[in-house]
């Protein structure tokens, strides 16, 4: 008998591709230099008080406070228009 793998959120290549795409969009939209870091994560918290699946983008520019951008949908479903709407 083999059991399902119930907990770990597997990161597929599709998800990595989506994250890379969002990073490129963010860099272009904010005209970021190479010194800036852009981090993209899908947050799916088990806390019932938290909203559902969200995509969180952190824009880290040296010497500036980190900017957090949140989009209320799974990472793989983020479109350029979603990002533009919250920038």
């Amino acid at each position, binding site marked *: 008998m083999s*059991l399902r793998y119930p907990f770990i959120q597997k990161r597929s290549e599709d998800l990595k591709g989506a994250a890379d795409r969002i990073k490129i969009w963010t860099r272009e939209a904010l005209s970021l230099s190479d010194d800036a870091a852009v981090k993209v994560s899908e947050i799916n918290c088990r806390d019932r008080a938290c909203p559902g699946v969200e995509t969180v983008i952190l824009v880290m520019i040296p010497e500036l406070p980190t900017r957090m951008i949140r989009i209320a949908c799974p990472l793989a479903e983020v479109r350029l228009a979603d990002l533009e709407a919250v920038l």
Partner: protein
Amino acid sequence: MTAQAAIPVTVFTGFLGAGKTTLLNRVLTENHGKRYAVIVNEFGEVGIDNDLVVNSDEEIFEMNNGCICCSVRGDLIRIIEGLMRRRSRFDGILIETTGLADPAPVAQTFFVDEDVRKNTKLDAIVTVVDAKHLVGALENVPEAQEQIAFADIILLNKTDLVEPEELDAARERIRAINPVATIRETERCGIELSDVLGRDAFSLDRILEVEPDFLSSLHEHEHDDHVSSLSLVSDQPLDPGKFFPWIQEIIQTLGTNILRMKGIIAFGNDPDRFVIQSVHMLLEGDHQRPWREGEARTSRLVFIGCNLPKEALRAGFERSFAGERQHS
């Protein structure tokens, strides 16, 4: 092209003055053949000064509306991003936190952020405590209990400054909070560095591998600590159809009151050990390896947390048994 191996990250935490900078300096100055990048909270105390020693500002980000489970250390994300551009220059990363740091956002950073997950692996949380001042710190500094709770390895340091009975009391107090960490008793952090580095303590392959007989003794001594532990053991096979919904439900219900949880589970009709662990509500699990011929198929589950509803947890565990209850 082969993928690069994840860089191991060791977190040094501990009370103010307990000796973690001494330990850090030993790693940085002794000849052990490994090169480390170091993230410190205060320049000037470490024994080397180069561009692989980076200052952190312990910046906490709440990724999801203030939820503690989704809090990460923004400074670590940023610093690790920068270090990865120089990854050929070091073999591992050491993070030194302040005596007042909450270890949870540090640990969660290594599970939540995609790039950090891809490039690094959390090797172990090492907590240095001062045998002389342990009891006072536990009573006066809330973070002290959590630093012990999250630890994989605890250095009970400055043992030369206490009487044997004080040391016994300190050991017992630590065990009541965290029954699964390895305790090493040291003077001036005198320990083989291989006992704190390269431990792979967060690997599912090594769940509860450390001190496997810890459950043979009971750690039921009552203290006023808000953090305590519960160990559940059974030779009765568990039913995955009951266990998985239960464990997910309690992780959700208890939320941030669970600091860490680890378990090895024997399911009926399953040839493999199933292992699980959580840091707060970040929960992962997988098959580990087949049960060996003649190996006792014993399920073991350890919760470390605040205000744990121990009887309810015990009852829920027993309701997950595949058949009739035999013993717990």
